[in-house]
């Protein structure tokens, strides 16, 4: 039996269909989840997709972090449920307190969409075990508020404990501190990143198929367990 991986749709989620497609292509069963439900429908892992939940009003991810389903996500994540936040989903995870730091306006003040090289810094998470540590991958980045920031001591701690999951290579698209593109929690079940692995699952429609590994990683871990 394969794993069931949920993708949460908030009002204003945009890449939810794409995340569901990536889950399907990886071989797992995609499950749609609705922001207004207090119900994770028994999924084995959850993806918070990209987009502009609630129009990014107030702050990106701020309102979505109070959605009914987020109470379930937070509780389940603390119990070990693998959770991946992509772009707006990463912002929601930071706002919900599952990951430290924040995402602010890009340094160039413009929305930036480009094919981005990333280095996989942590290959020991639920979502990155398919990659070799230090591997370079190409995945699209597309956001207006993707600049990762945190105070110095948090950044030092993230680096000292191996919790930087991805770093920008060959140019930092948004001025993120220490080139951080994504981070993980201590347990490694929660990962958030600004670039979009779900748009790099097929060379026909993306710059590579490098992103599929994240969905395969979690599937393998779940089916092996």
């Amino acid at each position, binding site marked *: 039996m394969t794993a069931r991986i949920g993708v949460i749709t908030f*009002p*204003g989620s*945009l*890449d939810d*269909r*794409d995340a569901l*497609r990536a889950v399907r292509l990886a071989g797992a069963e995609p499950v749609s989840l609705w922001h207004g439900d207090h119900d994770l429908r028994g999924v084995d892992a959850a993806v918070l997709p*990209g*987009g*502009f939940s*609630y*129009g*990014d*009003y107030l702050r990106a991810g701020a309102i979505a972090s109070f959605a009914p389903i987020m109470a379930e996500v937070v509780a389940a994540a603390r119990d070990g449920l693998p959770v991946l936040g992509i772009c707006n989903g990463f912002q929601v995870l930071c706002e919900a307190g599952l990951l430290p730091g924040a995402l602010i306006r890009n340094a160039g003040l*413009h*929305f*930036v*969409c*480009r094919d981005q090289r990333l280095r996989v810094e942590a290959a020991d998470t639920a979502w990155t075990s398919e990659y070799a540590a230090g591997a370079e991958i190409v995945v*699209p980045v*597309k956001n*207006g508020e993707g600049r990762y920031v945190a105070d110095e001591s948090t950044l030092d701690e993230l680096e000292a404990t191996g919790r930087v999951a991805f770093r920008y290579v060959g140019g930092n698209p948004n001025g993120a501190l220490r080139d951080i593109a994504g981070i993980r929690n201590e347990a490694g079940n929660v990962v958030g990143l600004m670039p*979009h692995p*779900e*748009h790099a699952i097929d060379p*026909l*429609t*993306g710059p590579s198929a490098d992103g599929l590994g994240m969905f395969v990683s979690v599937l393998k871990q779940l089916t092996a367990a």
Partner: protein
Amino acid sequence: MTETEQPYAELGLKDDEYARICDILGRRPSDTELAMYSVMWSEHCSYKSSKVHLRQFGEKAPETDVLLVGMGENAGVVDVGDGLAVTFKVESHNHPSYVEPYQGAATGVGGIVRDILTMGARPIAVMDSLRFGEIDHPDSRRLVSGVVAGVGGYGNCLGLPNIGGEVVFDPTYAGNPLVNALCLGVMRHDQIQLARAEGAGNKVVLLGAKTGRDGIGGVSVLASATFNEDGGPSKRPSVQVGDPFTEKVVIECCLELFERGLVTGIQDLGGAGLSCATSETASHGGSGMTVDLDLVPLREPSMSPVEVITSESQERMLAIVEPGDVDEVLALCAHWGVLATVIGEVTDSGRLEVRWHGEVVVDVPPASLADEGPVYERPYARPDDQDALQADSTDALVRPATGDELAETLLRLASSPNLASRRWVTEQYDRYVLGGTVLAMPHDSGVVRLVDDSDRGVALSLDGNGRYARLDPYAGAQLALSEAYRNVSTSGARPLAVTNCLNFGSPEDPAVMWQFAEATRGLADGCAELGVPVTGGNVSFYNQTGATAIHPTPVVGVLGVLDDVNRRVPSGFVAAGDVVILLGETYDEFGGSEWAWVVHGHLGGRPPMPRLSAERQLSDALQAAAADGLLTCAHDVSDGGLGQTLVEAALLNGIGATVTLDGDPFVALFSESAARAVVTCRDADVDRLLEIAAGHDLAVSRLGRTGGDALDVTGQFTLPLERLRETHEATLPRHLA
């Protein structure tokens, strides 16, 4: 009490138009009625000056069996096979974007997206065609930054990939930029919706945003009038304000309403707001309608009935719902967080009756607003300067002679504002969302896969050339069509249908009207010859500040179908060692060219000759070669000539080429003759490719081979790609960032 004169002139109505309204009603119109007629009879809504010319698109339309819905609806619908249909249309938002660049451009995207949604389709991609004054004009940075941020801000937040378009700089647009937006949607054949209110007793449901005081008179006093020297910013309240988040939930909500079969008719609220949506649906349904304005949710409770019924507040739709379905519709809207209110009822009275505070403020035949507006046969005359302009040929212009001079010319063109890399603009647009984008800029056309479980896709390109059209509007329109048709063909797609956005000066100027008549005639004849029907479009007049009109600028969108998107052909060199071939014939044609403009500041003579039968042969050959998997790359030759084509093809993946030119190297590199494309193929496929070309009577020049890190023109010059890239990419950021 004596009758005071009504303020019809301030609302943009002429004396005879006002007299006709009184005649239709048999009395003076109420204030609200007068406001409704003024917006519905505006040039923007009624097409009163263009109608007599636009008829040719129908009369001369080629035989086709792919059109499921033709002109006249919100957008045409094209059968692409497998039970799938697509709908696409381009529309202008020029004047709002000049007054308020961000919101003007943003709501331009929002408006065309709703047109596509109204047909029952899921919007799946957008494109934008933008024109500004000189890149170093003091106002350009404000306008370009604002418009690009607006197009991106709305489209990105709506989750629609932007897959292509154009950005042009020319002094002619300094006082009147052009912002044309295109949207593409997909649906199953059985999902087509029509904007009709039928069935007495059915409810009229307004859904989406609340109605506010923005965009009042947008179509009349703003879109259908010329800017005065000081008229810009003072019209700011006539510009709408967009909220893409609301539009996103409205889209998802409407698609679910369609899927569940809960609406019998639907219309978006765009230009002219409720006036348009109520009168058009009632008129097209051959019915009547009652509307109670007190039920319309307002942002500001003090709004007058005139304001409520003419407001162009965005993100609103009007749905016609059977009484038994109303509860389910309202529940579904609540699920999506979309405000929905029953505001009226379909009747069989044949009248549109609007109440406010218990009084009847409007009682008119809906067709008199929507379909029976004035029609003008405006006088037109060839401009006095047209002969002199055409006589001023490029023959006397000094041409580069040596290899160094040719290299310098190539670099100068590749870094000129109109040929330089568009990356600074396109990087601000999401091209990946929805996961169906197969090709996007800087490829010749945008290609999207339509649905996940099929390999079928469509290719789209949007092109125009105001300088060509200024020199010869008939040829200019055909050249715009040719270029878009060619760009779609280089991807391997089969061109199927056409949309257009006709941007011109004031129709009250006979010289402008002549340009318009010539351009529409050229486009209609061109479509007939290429076998692609016009499915819809938009006319934008009054594009001028003071007495000077913009260059006539027909922008043409062509849609093609790819049976298998895996067979799409990219526009850049993909591997070293491929054979580089030029298809089509090159003539000494420099009138209106980038070379004449950039190097000599010259605009005169005649544009390149449109070669429609050669275009068709070229397209057929490209399709055949792509279907057989022979082409590794195909790039059209147009603005800037073969030189620019080679630069773009080489820079796309950083693979150079060595080529040898036939004949005069200057003509070979920079002529803009139509009906040409550069293709590459593997050695093993050359013979089959040449066979296909010969079978289509195409001239073939074997230019050389791909490879290396330079563009090497044998015996003339060698330019390292690094240098080309640097100069090609620097121009837009230098002026705009």
